[in-house]
């Protein structure tokens, strides 16, 4: 097994199941890592040390008594602080939610990971109410990028991306409404899976935009993504949007490979929205795809209108959800989110209704692309992690506002609920950047197979931080 903190979840589980390591020793090492590293990264808003130690001890006793400990036995994990954790208020990155009654029960996905043997070690920081792509937060401070603490970690699942990249949690959970699983994965250099909309139940999590919210895992390998994803699948009546489809495990056939693929690379609008590092990463993915079938340019310029629809639905629906808090406690919001929420509360209804129609139209355009291509390849972010405090994104002379533009390439695909695996494509010592592998609805298995093949060929690797700057986390 690779030494902690860089051991992968499946390696840890195997060691704990076989008795080569105790869950207690894994948890002590993880808590020690968090204590040593997190003061520089600021990924955690709560460390659930007492609970983790108790659960690890119980697991070790169960294993000693001959019980089957589950596929994630002893694997430490942490969750974005919009997931309910029993005994803690669900902060959702805000000051206002600190006044909430502590949760009486864990979020469903936390329960499912625990049932598989995983052990929760804490809650992770995020952009306020998930309305963020940068990793900044006025209340908790910025989550720092483990590859360069002076750069953005990406949001809004900033703590999740950073904790997994920094060796503090081999698996973490986040959410994605417009790119929040993919932007931090790209900037922090780890893998993430945004499943199809409705695949994983959101029961007992704090919503951002109900009609666009997804949950999913971060990990340092595709195998770990699949392991966590399989443990979390299955319908639940607590989420009205959750599918009734049965569990469709991805792990058993992961290593079979994706077969000969037709690979679509969107041209036009997309091509002019990313920089040279992203272009190189896409090139490496295309070269590295196994038995590469046909690579073709596809026209997906409808994405521009799709993204506009996502912007308006997000702005309006989230503001409507927050309207009472905006009336009574607007001064307690992060200034970077407050003005957007206030504006969203004022949108004309006709704009939002048209956005819903364009969203449906954009889905038909995207599905047409899947009649000629099996998967689509698009960078996850236009550029690698910008420096903290930067406000302008310069793409070949085109100057764009940085905050919303970090999600430019991710937003169109969550808007229509497509499954996406983000893979890190960078060399040790470089700043990471991620590439999205986008599959048709309900084909998480295909996106995971492609990601796994890229990993096996050394194209996609979650390199440990350490080479970019002296103070990066070693």
């Amino acid at each position, binding site marked *: 097994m690779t030494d902690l903190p860089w051991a992968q979840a499946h390696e840890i589980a195997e060691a704990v199941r076989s008795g080569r390591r105790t869950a207690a020793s894994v948890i002590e090492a993880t808590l020690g890592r968090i204590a040593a590293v997190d003061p520089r990264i600021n990924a955690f808003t709560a460390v659930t040390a007492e609970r983790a130690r108790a659960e690890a001890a119980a697991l070790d006793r169960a294993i000693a008594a001959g019980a089957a400990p589950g596929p994630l036995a002893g694997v430490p994990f942490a969750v974005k602080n919009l997931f309910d954790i029993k005994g803690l208020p669900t902060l959702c990155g805000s000051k206002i939610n600190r006044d909430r009654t502590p949760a009486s029960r864990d979020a469903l996905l936390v329960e499912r990971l625990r049932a598989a043997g995983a052990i929760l070690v804490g809650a992770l920081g995020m952009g306020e109410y998930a309305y963020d792509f940068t990793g900044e937060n006025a209340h908790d401070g910025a989550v720092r990028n483990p590859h360069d603490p002076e750069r953005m970690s990406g949001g809004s699942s900033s703590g999740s991306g950073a904790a997994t990249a920094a060796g503090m949690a081999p698996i973490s959970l986040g959410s994605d409404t417009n790119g929040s699983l993919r932007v931090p994965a790209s900037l922090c250099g780890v893998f993430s899976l945004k499943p199809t909309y409705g695949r994983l139940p959101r029961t007992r999590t704090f919503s951002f935009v*109900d009609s666009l919210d997804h949950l999913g895992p971060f990990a340092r390998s595709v195998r770990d993504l699949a392991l966590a994803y399989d443990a979390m699948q299955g319908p639940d009546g607590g989420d009205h*949007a959750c599918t009734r489809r049965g569990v469709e495990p991805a792990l058993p056939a992961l290593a079979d490979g994706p077969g000969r693929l037709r690979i679509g690379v969107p041209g036009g609008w997309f091509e002019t929205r990313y920089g040279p590092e992203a272009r190189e990463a896409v090139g490496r993915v295309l070269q590295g795809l196994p038995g590469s079938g046909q690579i073709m340019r596809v026209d997906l310029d409808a994405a521009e209108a799709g993204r506009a629809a996502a912007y308006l639905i997000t702005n309006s629906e989230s503001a409507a959800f927050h309207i009472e808090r905006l009336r009574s406690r607007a001064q307690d919001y992060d200034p970077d989110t407050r003005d957007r929420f206030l504006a969203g509360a*004022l949108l004309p209804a006709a704009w939002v209704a048209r*956005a819903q129609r364009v969203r449906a139209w954009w889905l038909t355009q995207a599905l047409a692309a899947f009649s000629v291509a099996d998967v689509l390849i698009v960078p996850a972010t236009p550029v690698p992690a910008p420096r903290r405090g930067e406000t302008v994104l310069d793409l070949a002379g085109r100057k764009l506002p940085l905050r919303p533009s970090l999600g430019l390439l991710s937003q169109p695909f969550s808007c229509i609920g497509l499954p996406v695996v983000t893979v890190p494509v960078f060399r040790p010592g470089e700043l990471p950047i991620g590439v999205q592998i986008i599959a048709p609805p309900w084909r998480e298995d295909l996106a995971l197979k492609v990601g796994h093949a890229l990993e096996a060929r050394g194209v996609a690797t979650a390199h440990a931080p350490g080479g970019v700057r002296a103070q990066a986390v070693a």
Partner: protein
Amino acid sequence: MDLDRYVDVAAEVIDLPVTPDWKPGVVRFLGLAAEMAQLLETVALDDAELVMAPVYSPDAFAGGKDD
């Protein structure tokens, strides 16, 4: 569109506090939303393309929606 005046009137109608300090930011974001709305107008939609709101199914609350 006179966004400045729109913010004043619409905020009063729905009883939303927009202080003078916050107003420039609110107007800026409303302007961005207006640009997005203009973009949507460039899409030629057929009258048969509906989905004016997220599709609601009472069945969903009994344990998840149909595939």
